[in-house]
């Protein structure tokens, strides 16, 4: 395990950026690890992979990878990524984003990208708050929870990002937590392999921001919280119908998988059709 970690580090990490900006107990570094392992396992050509991100803690990830990286404006990573991928389809495009970046300011780009189905992988690190700015409420903060901008409790209901992605048309949707490294790696691999918009949400702790306000001040407390408050899709299926409808836990696992036409494929067909139309008719 240690040797493999060192191999991954030596192969993919941009040394000049070390040490990272992440706080003790933060889960974002784990996601970097899981993603690099998925990339390594697939054998993705790092020279032909572009990592895009928006603004926030999770969006700092592309800087740590020795590869092309586009650290963009707040919420817009997916829109930038769309331009990269559609112009140069031979590149693999992976987006790192967070709950505030992707579901708050970037919510519209997210749902439209899922609908449009351009081939890319979006990894959303959901830590239930705006961490970079010091722990404000986000679109995924559970109702009643505390944050610096909801000091008396959050009055709003959170988004279920995976249901949002499924509703918007994403062909691959999975959600895991820090506590499931191998499942997460496999999910990222599947998202990369998906011909279309692959979405992976990863619940990751923010002990400094969300955790401090909600009695989850260290990593173990967060990991325990995930254990108590999540249920796998397979375990959920084992429950009786009544138990299932009473379930309030966050469902994790591969939540959606389908094959559907991908944007660039359709564009290629269109270009081919137009070229065929413009060729002079063969004389007999």
């Amino acid at each position, binding site marked *: 395990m240690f040797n493999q970690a060192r191999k991954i580090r030596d192969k993919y990490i*941009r040394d*000049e*950026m070390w040490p990272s900006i992440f706080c003790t107990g933060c889960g974002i570094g784990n996601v970097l690890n899981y993603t690099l392992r998925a990339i390594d396992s697939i054998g993705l050509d790092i*020279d*032909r992979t*572009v990592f*895009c991100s928006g603004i926030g803690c999770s969006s700092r990830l*592309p*800087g740590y990878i*020795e*590869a*092309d*990286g*586009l*650290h*963009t*404006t707040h919420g*817009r990573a997916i*829109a*930038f*990524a*769309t*331009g*990269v*991928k*559609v*112009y*140069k389809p*031979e*590149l693999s495009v992976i987006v790192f984003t967070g709950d505030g970046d992707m579901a708050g300011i970037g919510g*519209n*780009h997210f749902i*439209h990208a899922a609908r449009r189905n351009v081939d890319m992988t979006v990894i959303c690190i959901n830590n239930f708050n705006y961490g970079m700015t010091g722990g404000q409420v986000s679109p995924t903060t559970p109702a009643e929870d505390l944050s610096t901008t909801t000091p008396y409790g959050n009055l709003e209901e959170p988004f279920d990002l995976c249901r949002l992605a499924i509703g918007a048309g994403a062909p691959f949707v999975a959600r895991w937590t820090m506590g499931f490294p191998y499942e997460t790696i496999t999910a990222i691999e599947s998202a990369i392999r998906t011909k279309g918009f692959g979405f992976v949400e990863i619940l990751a702790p923010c002990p400094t921001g969300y955790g401090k306000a909600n009695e989850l001040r260290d990593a173990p407390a967060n990991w325990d919280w995930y254990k108590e408050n999540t249920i796998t899709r397979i375990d959920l299926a084992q429950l009786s119908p009544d138990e299932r409808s009473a379930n309030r836990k966050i469902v994790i696992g591969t939540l959606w998988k389908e094959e559907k036409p991908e944007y660039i494929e359709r*564009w290629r067909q*269109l*270009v081919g059709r*137009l*070229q065929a139309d*413009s060729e002079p008719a063969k004389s007999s």
Partner: protein
Amino acid sequence: MARELDYRRVMEVLGSREQFAQGDVACAYGAILGGCDFFAGYPITPATEVAETMAVLLPRLGCAVMQMEDEIASLSAVIGAAWAGSRAFTATSGPGFSLMQEGIGYACMTETPCVIINVQRSGPSTGQPTEPAQGDMLQARWGTHGDHEIIALAPASVQECVDLTRLAFNLAEEYRNPVLVMTDGEVGHMREKIVLPAEDEIELVERCPPTNKPGAYVPFRAAPGSVPEMASFGTGFHTYVTGLTHDERGLPATDDAEQHTRLVRRLVDKIRDDTERLTRVEVDSEEGAKVGIVSYGISARSAAGAVRIARAEGRKINHLRLISVYPFPERAVRDFANGLDRIIVPELNLGQICHVVREALEGEATVERVSRIGGEIIPPEEIVKALIEGGEQV
């Protein structure tokens, strides 16, 4: 490595070299003749025809056109495509231009070549969507936050929509900066004869590729006032691009005053220092005049009419038309004003470029304005009246 335009194929798609065309369509033609190979946009009056024309033409050239979910996404996709190697652009009008300010700042900071066409309409806010205006001229210069420099061109005819859009693509690549084509609802929607360039008139200037190998290439290293080499994504150079203050390697250096100063001064100076080279003006002067007009865009047509009327009445008047508006051609305007007592600036706004002119002249001549808003262009007689009776105060 140099990019060649497949002229024969392009002209098969564009049709005859001589056409009677609309300004927006001419911008689209100019883009394609400028080597454009990606467009992303969002419908907005009076710029929609640019997107519609690109949607017809680009796929026939094997290139992609996307309608995004808003103007922010449109410019974002353009910038992404540009880093993947594209000569990309978007087209919009006032409300969309406001939304694009975020992306314009990002493109300035990351030195991303891109072109934005703003077919200006009357504001503020939704204003008069179908009516022309020149109300975004200062927003074009200062709309995005922070210190930056911009290149902006102002077509006064449908032919110039072709010519200046072509030029915009080359300047964007050469200076690695957003280049704005500031047209308006009148120029965008009027129809005039255009002549598309012949094959030997086509020249595509490209971003300077890396001269070093991966590993030795330092993506944002450049002498003060100069433009760094640019490796497109997917070419093995592992470029990290960020809107944060960055060092020569492109890595964040946000709490380093010296790095920030060096970076932002270079971004500004690479354009400001080249003002003379970027200056494009048209001067119509005669001996003995004491009054001059400084105009741009559609209002330059009104000004030219005013010059004809005034001279027919035996009055002397000079005229300078700004073809490039930013970096502002200060020296050309000062030279023009030399010996003149008064400068009149006609604009479809309540006074924007007149302030820049006044600043450039430093009191050498008094600056007056002829302002018109509401959706009609300026009748030449109004400028003649200002010539005789004086214009509005700046």
